[in-house]
């Protein structure tokens, strides 16, 4: 029987926490970019965009992330295409995050009074200028709290990536507790690490909110 010190536990959890960070970044960047593109397509009233994005949002908000990860990994494999866990996780997290973000941001843009669009239009600004200089700066301020609230959820949601073989924080905690027989210590450490990841983001959001007021 090997003895595990607290440092052994923490060290191994920290190594696994790197994957949680990487997976979260993938979700933030991929989901943010795709979410923004979908948002612009929608408010620009591109033909068919409204219905497509509404359907997209329904599908990815209405199904569990776990299923999306499964399908992205094993489902694509059924068509004879061999996807690496990286590709499937990137795909699933991007789809999932973008569906939520685009819907959150659409509400923020809709909250900007119509008169702001009309003033910008009557000053001869084109659509891009209206968005960049008038609408988005105002929408951004109201978007910060719900966006951060959701991103913190995503950080915790990355735990589900363990189903396709990622040993991230939660999965590592499981494995370590199985060999140390100290589940309370291990999972207390796991919870602490999630908190350490999430709390600065909430703090930063508060700071941003104050700065943009």
């Amino acid at each position, binding site marked *: 029987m090997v003895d595990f010190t607290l440092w052994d536990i923490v060290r191994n959890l920290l190594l696994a926490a790197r994957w949680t960070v990487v997976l979260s970044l993938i979700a933030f960047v991929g989901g943010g970019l795709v979410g923004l593109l979908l948002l612009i397509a929608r408010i620009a009233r591109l033909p068919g965009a409204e219905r497509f994005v509404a359907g997209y949002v329904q599908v990815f908000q209405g199904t569990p992330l776990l299923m999306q990860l499964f399908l992205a990994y094993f489902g694509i494999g059924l068509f004879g295409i061999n996807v690496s866990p990286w590709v499937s996780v990137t795909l699933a997290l991007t789809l999932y995050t973008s569906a939520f973000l685009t819907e959150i941001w659409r509400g923020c843009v809709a909250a900007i009074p119509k008169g702001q669009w009309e*003033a910008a239009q009557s*000053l001869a600004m084109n659509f891009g*200028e209206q968005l960049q200089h*008038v609408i988005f700066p105002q929408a951004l301020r109201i978007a910060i709290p719900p966006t951060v609230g959701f991103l913190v959820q995503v950080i915790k949601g990355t735990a589900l990536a363990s189903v396709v073989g990622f040993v991230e924080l939660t999965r590592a905690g499981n494995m370590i507790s199985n060999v140390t027989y100290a589940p309370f210590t291990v999972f207390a450490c796991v919870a602490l690490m999630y908190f350490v990841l999430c709390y600065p983001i909430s703090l930063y959001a508060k700071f941003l909110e104050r700065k943009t007021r």
Partner: protein
Amino acid sequence: MNVSTSTEPQAPIVQITALRKSYGTNEVLKGIDLKVARGEVIAIIGKSGSGKSTLLRCINGLEVFQEGALTVDGKPLLYDSPMAMRELRQHVGMIFQSFNLFPHLSVGRNIMLAPTLVKKTDKVDAAEHARKLLLRVGLAEKFDAMPDQLSGGQQQRVAIARALAMEPAVLLCDEITSALDPELVGEVLRVVESLANEGMTLLMVTHEMNFARKVADRVIFMHQGRVHEMGPPEVLFGNPQTPELQQFLSSLKD
């Protein structure tokens, strides 16, 4: 159509021909014909729902009309061409009832934004122009203020300066004093009057009949989506021809 039309002194700056607009099955403008000469000041009056604001908003393309034609400075309104709309809107300024200043930008940057983006004016020149315009509307010291630090009357005067910064040929005023406290109406109307005296072409939807009588060259009474009566203010107010206008004017008195 071409440059020569706009250089003739007789050519109307705004020409509206047989304009019809409906929301679904509800027709709100039922064939409007209107020619506005350069430098003319036109007041549009009428009950709410008579289509006066809609007509004004058609002139810079904020509302889409279904039939008829509209030209500003000889250039036709083409909804499908963003380039043509951008060109037209540079000739038409608009001031709104609710001011619609950009709340996240300072007063100075509100005024500078469109010239620097659309006309590619240099930042330094745009700032200098903005300060001149603020001086003109009596707010020289408010360049760095934020809109929410200003009174309604001050905000509306900034909105006027912002519209003027694009050097429009026509200025549309959509009930610009309706959202103001009574004691703030005068300061805004004085600015508008000075613009009229300087030869700006103005089309204003207004409930300020005394102001219309004093400043307008021509008053248009709209009723049920049509130009019901039109003429110089002394005739229209002094000797209204139609029972609708008589009723409208008498309803204002009590």
